[in-house]
């Protein structure tokens, strides 16, 4: 037992909207005009165990820039920082359970001294009824390096597909579809950290 035991998580209930999703607190658009990298739009829904949309969830993302570096003091990697890219996003969900982000496709981030990770985006999902938030990763279905990603390969093969975002070209916009299923047969693979 640690001397300082962790504070327990508690649901925020239905109060994301007034508290954490005000206009000055949400961040669907991560890019600025000067941001380097391939523009992508991420769209998806948060679904419960019955496949019913969760209308009041909150989705947060955290990702590296297009060079594969996090805008964070502990990332002292050699890849350049992009001053116009923070990498943090937050979206609520609509009545249909939908969330969206406009961002860039991240570069590959080192895993250890030798291996690289496939481009991915870290997801945290908060929802009424969840005693603790859940964490997962979005991978890009058209990314060849997925097969060598050490984290993705930890996920049982039959569940890896739940982490792959489906690419679609809508006009000139690259859209990746990524639904998050909280429970049930198609439950998204969540990471227990």
């Amino acid at each position, binding site marked *: 037992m640690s001397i300082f*035991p962790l*504070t*327990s998580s508690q*649901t925020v*209930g*239905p*109060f994301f909207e007034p*508290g954490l999703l005000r206009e000055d607190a949400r961040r669907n658009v991560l890019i600025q005009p000067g941001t380097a990298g391939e523009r992508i739009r991420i769209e998806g829904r948060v679904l419960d165990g019955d496949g019913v949309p969760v209308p009041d969830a909150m989705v947060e993302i*955290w990702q590296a820039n297009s060079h594969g570096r996090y*805008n964070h003091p502990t990332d002292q990697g050699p890849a350049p920082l992009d001053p116009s890219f923070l990498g943090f996003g937050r979206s609520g969900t609509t009545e249909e359970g939908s969330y969206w982000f406009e961002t860039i496709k991240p570069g590959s981030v080192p895993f250890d001294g030798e291996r690289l990770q496939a481009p991915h985006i870290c997801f945290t999902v908060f929802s009424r009824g969840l005693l603790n938030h859940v964490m997962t990763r979005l991978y890009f279905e058209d990314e060849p390096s997925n097969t060598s990603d050490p984290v993705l390969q930890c996920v049982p093969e039959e569940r890896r597909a739940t982490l792959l975002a489906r690419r679609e070209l809508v006009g000139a916009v690259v859209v990746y579809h990524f639904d998050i299923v909280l429970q049930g047969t198609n439950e998204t693979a969540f990471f227990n950290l």
Partner: protein
Amino acid sequence: MAAVELMANQGDASVPTDNVMRVCSQWLQANQGDARLLTIYGFVLYTVCMSKIAYKSNRNVYYSCKYHVVWCPKYRRKVLMGEVVERLKQIIHEVCQEHEAEVLALDPNFLGIGRCLTNEDGVYRFLTIRPGAYPWKNHPNAWRPAHIHFSVFGPSMLTRLVTQMYFPDDPLHQLDPIMNAVPSEQARKRLIALYDHDVTEAEWALGYRWNLVVHGPDATPFESSEPGGTK
């Protein structure tokens, strides 16, 4: 960084029911008996009214009533927003005028949301009002104990935490399913702030101390293997 929501205050036993009823009925009238009255809840509006007649007396007491009227979320709908709020404010002023009551404070003086960065010692501070318990219909006679929602960011995804702070000596704690979702009594106790007289400021505000403990930076092997504080 911490973001806090403070969502509701039901006032005390002296809530002026007649004023509330009047406001509600006038609001209804203004909307042609629209059924939306049922969904008037949905956003907090915090109001303080006080009679213009400063003191009253009877055989035993000499008193001055101050009323706190609060609308708190009953159903999960956003109704008290935009034009509805504006109209409601007008009506509150009209009703108070009619009753010769003075509105001391009316939304937006209390929004219920705060955010601050911790200093190098990890210290944060908020000055707010103490919220009240509110009914939430989860089960018969269900009341949430007074609480404040906390959302905490730290240096990594592991330190992300959303939780609730409670106040000491609240008999509702043991009846609350949300607080009791935390299975250990010790862990539940850690969600309760402690009264601290050193934090209390004279003639101004009672002080509570509540420490949050989040994962340390070396909590998992993933941390050192992937910089940037991801999983």
